[in-house]
């Protein structure tokens, strides 16, 4: 690879993103849905770090971005779990297709 490892890393992150998206479309259990979302967030993290390292080595912006994304992902996962627990209490199930009250 005369161009360096950037493109493979980007391809890995793209693949991971779309794997996560497939999980988002397919999974019926809300917790597994959350897991797929975490995969997507991680792919974005890889992207940021890769760009920072290979295109802009003098700065640290990408690194900080991914740091903050990890933090926020943690907070978001916690809130999501809380919501899932609440939904479980009222619907007795965490199937995504059972929580369709917001329809027409």
């Amino acid at each position, binding site marked *: 690879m005369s161009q360096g490892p950037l493109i493979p890393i980007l391809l890995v992150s793209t693949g991971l993103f779309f794997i996560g*998206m497939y999980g*988002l*479309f*397919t999974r019926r259990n809300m917790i597994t*849905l959350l897991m797929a979302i975490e995969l997507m967030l991680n792919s974005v993290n890889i992207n940021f770090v890769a760009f920072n390292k290979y295109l802009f080595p003098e700065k640290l912006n990408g690194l900080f971005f991914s740091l903050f994304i990890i933090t926020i992902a943690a907070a978001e996962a916690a809130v999501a779990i809380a919501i899932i627990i609440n939904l479980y209490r009222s619907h007795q199930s965490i199937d*995504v*297709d059972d*929580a*369709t*009250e*917001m*329809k*027409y």
Partner: protein
Amino acid sequence: MSNYAYVLWIPLLPLLTFVVLGIFGRKYFKTSAGIIGTASLLAAAVLSFNTAYHYFLVDGKVNGVFQKIIALQYTWLSFSPGVSVDMGIVIDPISVMMLVVVTSVSLMVHLFSLGYMKGEERFATYYAFLSLFTFSMLGLILSVNIFQVYIFWELVGASSFLLIGYYFSKPSAVAAAKKAFIVTRFADLGFLMGILILGFYGGTLDIGLLIQKLTSTTSPEFINMTSASFLGASMLTWGLTLVFMGGAGKSAMFPLHIWLPDAMEGPTPVSALIHAATMVVAGVYLVARLFPIFSMDPTSLTIVTYVGAFSAFLAAVIACTQTDIKRVLAYSTMSQIGYMMFALGISKQGGEEGLGYMASMFHLFTHAFFKSLLFLGAGAVIHMVHSNEMKDMGGLRKLMPITHLSFLIACLAIAGIPPFAGFFSKEEILMAAFHSNKIIYGVALFTAAMTSFYMFRLYFSIFWSKEAAHHDHHHGEGTWSMKLPLVILSICAVGVGMIPFSSFVTSDGVALETHTDLMFSLAPVSLTIIAISLAAYLYKTQNQKPDQFATAWGGIYKAAYKKFYIDEVYLFITKKIIFPLIGQPIAWVDKNIVDGFVQSSATVTAKISSSIKGLQSGKIQSYTLYFFGGIIALSLLFIYIWK
């Protein structure tokens, strides 16, 4: 020149009465509605007399010619710089004369109704409608713009509908009101087309300007109108004939006369006001208003003449056979209006030749008084006997002396016996006919004889024929409010003939010298006396001679009794031809296609929306799929297509 702006109050007072009685009458003015209506009309009548006095006797004349004064004018709706619908008041000889006629007859009717309609539940509504009608008629008379005439024309039609259908619980009254409205509305179609033609070619809707433009043979509008032609007749003829069609509908000329006999379903004072003196002469008034233009087109005048003459003759024949007294009077009205029409038709504009115009207006004036008197008298009789049929009446001369005397005066007037009013006006008409068209003169003479015959047939059948049956006499002849108008109108029926009418109302405003030619009058008066004697012979005492006469005439008598089957022809045309062939298909199109289109736009929208709403299923994963799809679409768009 005095300011005639106060004339605005003459139509305005009845309008205000209508509004007040219409809104508050049922609750607050249950019994006092009559007083209010009569009082406001008394004020309007006083104002009209004042106007007439000022106009005719004080300062209407300038250099011996009566001026046309525009008292008020207000541009209401402007279609283009020249053509606009103005609202205004015009004061000229015929409008002032009509003001006097309409307000005085309406006042008499209001007064009479105080007694006749007493105890009616919808008393206030009745007076409200009467005031509305008076307002509309006055507005029509004073109109300065032909479209304004049309507006008030329709208002008159609507108020007449309300009044004819006053007893709305009777199906025959409702049917009669519908018939009157539909027939006159159909005629108004012609009127509107005539207005549009005249307005288009004349370049204006103002009556004064129209007359100015279309009466000089050199004006561009006149040349345009007479050179453009359609199906062989010039546009001027078309315009005027269509306008006359509107007038013929309102004035019950053949063949649009079918509504007038049926309109007798309304209360009798209403018949006296509308179908004797005011609404039915609106057609004559219209032709008289536009007379200078009519006189430029001999074709349309010929049509006016022959329609009028034929209607007069036909109505007289039918009236000889009818047994309902109001029907007789209705046909008599149709006949007299035919007289007025053909008198206009044979007249020319200006000077001696304008005799027909003057005669027609004079006859209108006198006819209003004696015809309303006849109707009110008939009303008093009906009030007493509780029936309209001649066979239920007889020998009433002892029971109702005042009614008897006034009815007799009115019959003498309509028959044309001197010195009663009808004599003078009929003489003028016959003289004008004699000088221009001998055939029309002959028809008019014969019709005059028939008029006397059937009127006195009516008179003798009511007041002489047999001894009065013992009806309940407890309500006698009627209250003073029913007798007073009869007395006043009798005095008018005697006196108005003496008014030197020709010095006031003529075709061009210049006073006309007329005199009674005794040799000429000999023929009609003697024919009249023969007819009266014949009627007395047949009807003064009850005998078999009328029935023998009827069987002798056989088929013709039967046809005349059935009004020559004209109603049946109309029914056939409407029920068998218009309804199934035109009405039903159009109704089908309207219901299924037009309505269907509108409804289908609603159903289509609902279907589309219900199919779209399926997108919002509440399932998150569907939403994410759509979201992703949108992103892909946008990115394709921006990366590959719109660089």
